[in-house]
């Protein structure tokens, strides 16, 4: 009973923060619209709209009303899922973005798996052999990767691995004639659903480099955090006791040291999941992949202001929701976070 109350209290507080954040985001986007130079109705209607069309848009958006009414109208349209209309695709921005969201999520999920699969073992080895050759080289690599612009790393690797060595496709998400019927919108999943295994491996072949570039940025943070946490744990008394009872290095690291160092890594990777969606804009465009980032990039290039701001609203919302889901998952998975979050209820 008490646990249930603690859970519901945590959930309502966390949901409250999410709603507050979304409201803040919506207000910022409204501010952006108001900051745009020129006539808003003209911008929303497109450069070659007739005077009558512009007046119709002005009417529909209520642009003759006082700003506060416009703000309320804007919030109302957002609640109904109206993020504005693209002057390039002539489609509602939300419909455009929903179509490409699965593609971005696929990229982020694979990048996150790569990120953890590389950074966690590297962090363990580096901390266990502190000051050794592997530790030194991986730390230097992490510093260098962390300072590189993602889009530049993508361009260089695309050139070297795609054009010069030809080990991966240069761009796109699947080879010619490899496409499967669209069910989810995520190419790898669609290929699996269609039972098209050649197509599945083809999509994986296309996604490995973009995902690796996206993962590289975030893996340096996981690596540094895990290494620092492990170094602290490895110095503690209970590790000495574990060693004294004759445990193997592997047992000591995996069963004792690692579980006690994963907390900051879990928290960080949760925050990264959201941040990766934002960074996808830099990677998707270089590799000509579909996705919300690429959509936004094209909207910027075509001066499609409402599509850009609709994308800001959409990506911000997705990031907030991903953060919310990750926080709830962490609460369910990690007893320590659970204790800390639910325990604070008594105060």
């Amino acid at each position, binding site marked *: 009973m008490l646990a249930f109350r603690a859970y519901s209290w945590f959930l309502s507080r966390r949901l409250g923060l999410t709603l507050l954040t979304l409201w*803040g985001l919506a207000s910022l986007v409204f501010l952006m619209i108001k900051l745009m130079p020129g006539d808003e109705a003209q911008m929303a209607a497109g450069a070659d709209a007739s005077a009558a069309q512009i007046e119709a848009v002005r009417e529909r958006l209520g642009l003759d009303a006082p700003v506060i009414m416009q703000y309320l109208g804007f919030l109302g349209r957002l609640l109904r899922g109206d993020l504005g209309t693209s002057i390039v695709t002539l489609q509602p921005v939300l419909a455009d973005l929903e179509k490409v969201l699965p593609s971005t999520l696929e990229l982020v999920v694979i990048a996150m798996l790569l990120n953890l699969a590389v950074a966690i073992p590297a962090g363990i080895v580096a901390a266990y052999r502190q000051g050794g050759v592997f530790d030194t080289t991986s730390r230097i690599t992490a*510093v260098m990767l962390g300072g590189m612009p993602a889009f530049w790393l993508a361009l*260089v690797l695309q050139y070297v691995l795609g054009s010069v060595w030809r080990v991966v496709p240069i761009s796109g998400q699947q080879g010619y004639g490899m496409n499967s019927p669209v069910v989810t919108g995520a190419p790898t999943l669609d290929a699996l659903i269609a039972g098209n295994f050649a197509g599945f491996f083809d999509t994986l072949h296309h996604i490995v480099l973009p995902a690796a570039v996206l993962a590289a940025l975030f893996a340096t943070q996981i690596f540094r955090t895990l290494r*620092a946490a492990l170094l602290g744990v490895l110095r503690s008394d209970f590790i000495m006791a574990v060693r004294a009872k004759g445990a193997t290095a592997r047992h000591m690291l995996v069963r004792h040291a690692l579980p006690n160092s994963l907390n900051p890594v879990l928290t960080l990777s949760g925050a990264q999941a959201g941040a990766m969606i934002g960074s996808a*804009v830099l990677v998707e465009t270089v590799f000509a992949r579909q996705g919300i980032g690429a959509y936004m990039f094209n909207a910027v290039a075509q001066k499609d202001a409402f599509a*850009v701001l609709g994308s800001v609203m959409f*990506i911000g919302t997705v990031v907030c929701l991903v953060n919310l889901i990750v926080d709830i998952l962490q609460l369910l998975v990690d007893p320590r976070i659970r204790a800390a979050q639910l325990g604070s209820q008594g105060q």
Partner: protein
Amino acid sequence: MTAPAIAQPATARRKEGFSTFEIFVFTLVIALLTIAVFGPFLAPDSIYNSDIANSLMPPSATNWFGTDDQGRDVFWRLIVGAQTTLLSAFLVVTLYSLIGVTLATVAAAGPRWLDEGLMRITDIGLALPGMIVALGFAAAMGASLRSAIIAMAITGWPITARMLRGIMRQTMEQPFVAGAQVLGVSKWRLMTKHVLPNSLDVLIVKWAGDIGTTVLVLASLSFIGVGAQPPSAEWGATIAAARGYVSTAWWTVVAPGAAVAITSIAFGLLGDIIQVRRDPSLRGN
């Protein structure tokens, strides 16, 4: 009255002097700053004009890093771009630090409801993807370097505000603050002359690392197209402009990206060094 000589522990005394690595990082940062300040005065005028006959020439003795699609020298454009890039980054960090300091001071000094309100706004800022919101602001104000700088300044402050407010609250618990209060110091004077100066340590530590990250974000915004516009020599814009030539003239893309990476890494390492010097317990991490 002289203070009695206190024996310093050996570790504290060994702190004097710099390691080779530290000297290397300092040299790198000073070199970058020197280039940024004096570079544009040294650059030949020819880099501002196109010379199509000499476009996309590979690196040579006359053009160390080759030439770009307009036949301009890549090396000298990097030197000129250093000023744009570093000056913008300094401006961004200064502006958002000022916003952060102001909000933190008001939150720490103000009544509880104001503190609560400001910290919830900070929560919102921390929860949103900073680069995406900055991109939105820059695009809305009209894509330009100025827009990007303003956009990054108005989205960059939350971490500073949150950290500084925490530190200021701790400083306010110190006995000397109570002492000043007893002496009847006004709230304004208490905050600006006593609490704030004793809390700014955290910003000094953060400063260099922030420059490193800002250089990266600025280059990213320019690459996306909402920051500096061609023909600006800003590094991100240079990469964006050269993007189509990567397979025929790799040096036009590799050089400006390497410049961003070196600058970002150098300032990041400087930040780490300052942090370890302030808190030697972090050494080795």
